[in-house]
């Protein structure tokens, strides 16, 4: 089976502007490989093609890409998902972030927002216990669906609010992590965390369109977490 790929190419040292380049790849009939495997085969054809990858099993979050218009991880997206409608398989970098080269984007803005929400336990200056820092099973259960985020940026780069205001709106990924620490029974900085988010942009630029939910490769629900943050902000203000 012969597949055609249309891949975004841009090398700022050589190209004046980005272009789409076509590639074809022979895939054995009846087999189904992942998009990342196909990209690795295409890189054998054309070694100048640049993309990020590491664990190749959906754990590290390095190979977030836009495939046929939808963000996802190349390593856990089967080619059969993209060939259902026929036609070319279109692969672009994650939208909204500056392109370093080809499919590699500069994630600085995304990480800055992650850093801003202080993604670590704050315990009022008290030393955490030397051994386990215990929680009840109920308290621990509140972190399910929050701690699994791998920071692949698929959600934040699918969010128009993050496209327009990446410097002011924290974005779905950062807010999911913010709620992960707001919901943690061991964290004592709830008030300070909420005060840092209490403006017109950081949280409230989320209008709940749920693009983040539809693309999250880990099946998480940032919109729900953002709803919880909004309700915590409301409760301390009303």
């Amino acid at each position, binding site marked *: 089976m012969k597949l055609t790929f249309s891949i975004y190419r841009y090398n700022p040292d050589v190209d004046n502007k980005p272009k789409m380049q076509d590639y074809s790849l022979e895939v054995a009939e009846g087999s189904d490989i992942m998009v990342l495997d196909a990209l690795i085969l295409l890189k054998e054809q054309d070694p100048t093609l640049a993309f990020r990858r590491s664990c190749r099993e959906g754990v590290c979050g390095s190979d977030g890409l836009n495939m046929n218009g939808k963000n996802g991880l190349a390593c856990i997206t089967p080619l059969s998902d993209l060939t259902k409608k026929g036609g070319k398989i279109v692969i672009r970098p994650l939208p909204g972030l500056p392109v370093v080269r080809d499919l590699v984007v500069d994630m600085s803005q995304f990480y800055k927002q992650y850093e801003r929400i202080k993604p670590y336990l704050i315990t009022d200056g008290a030393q955490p216990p030397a051994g386990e820092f215990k929680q009840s099973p109920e308290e621990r259960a509140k972190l399910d669906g929050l701690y699994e985020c791998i920071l692949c940026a698929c959600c934040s780069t699918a969010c*128009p*609010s993050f496209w*327009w*205001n990446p410097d*002011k709106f924290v974005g779905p990924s950062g807010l999911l992590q913010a709620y992960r620490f707001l919901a943690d029974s061991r964290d004592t900085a709830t008030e300070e965390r909420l*005060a*840092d*988010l*209490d*403006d*017109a*942009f*950081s*949280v*409230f*630029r989320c209008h709940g369109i749920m693009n983040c939910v539809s693309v999250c490769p880990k099946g998480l629900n940032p919109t729900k977490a953002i709803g919880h943050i*909004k309700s915590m*902000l*409301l409760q301390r*203000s*009303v």
Partner: protein
Amino acid sequence: MVMQAATLGRNGVQDFILLRCSAIILALYAIFIVGFLALTPELTYQSWAGFFGHIGTKVFSFVALIAFLAHAWIGLWQVLTDYVKPAGMRGMLQFLLNVVILAYVGFGIFALWGV
């Protein structure tokens, strides 16, 4: 934290509450007007004038106009801060649009006053 002086509320929570409350008022007002249109067998000048001459309709329409003012002010500020990046142009556009909103509210109030 990001400070914004040009929106209506003093912070994100206040904008959020104002938007939701004004949306509820506008939805109820829309149902009220559609209800009147549906339940009036024949629409004449007299039925319109009688409906809008009623003190309840006047007060509700006034409240809806104020809700519209808040809703449009905040909503347009949100749209402009998304799509218009140069601060000078955004400030000017917001000024012009807010004047238009105020003019609509003024027009509505004087129209109610006249019935």
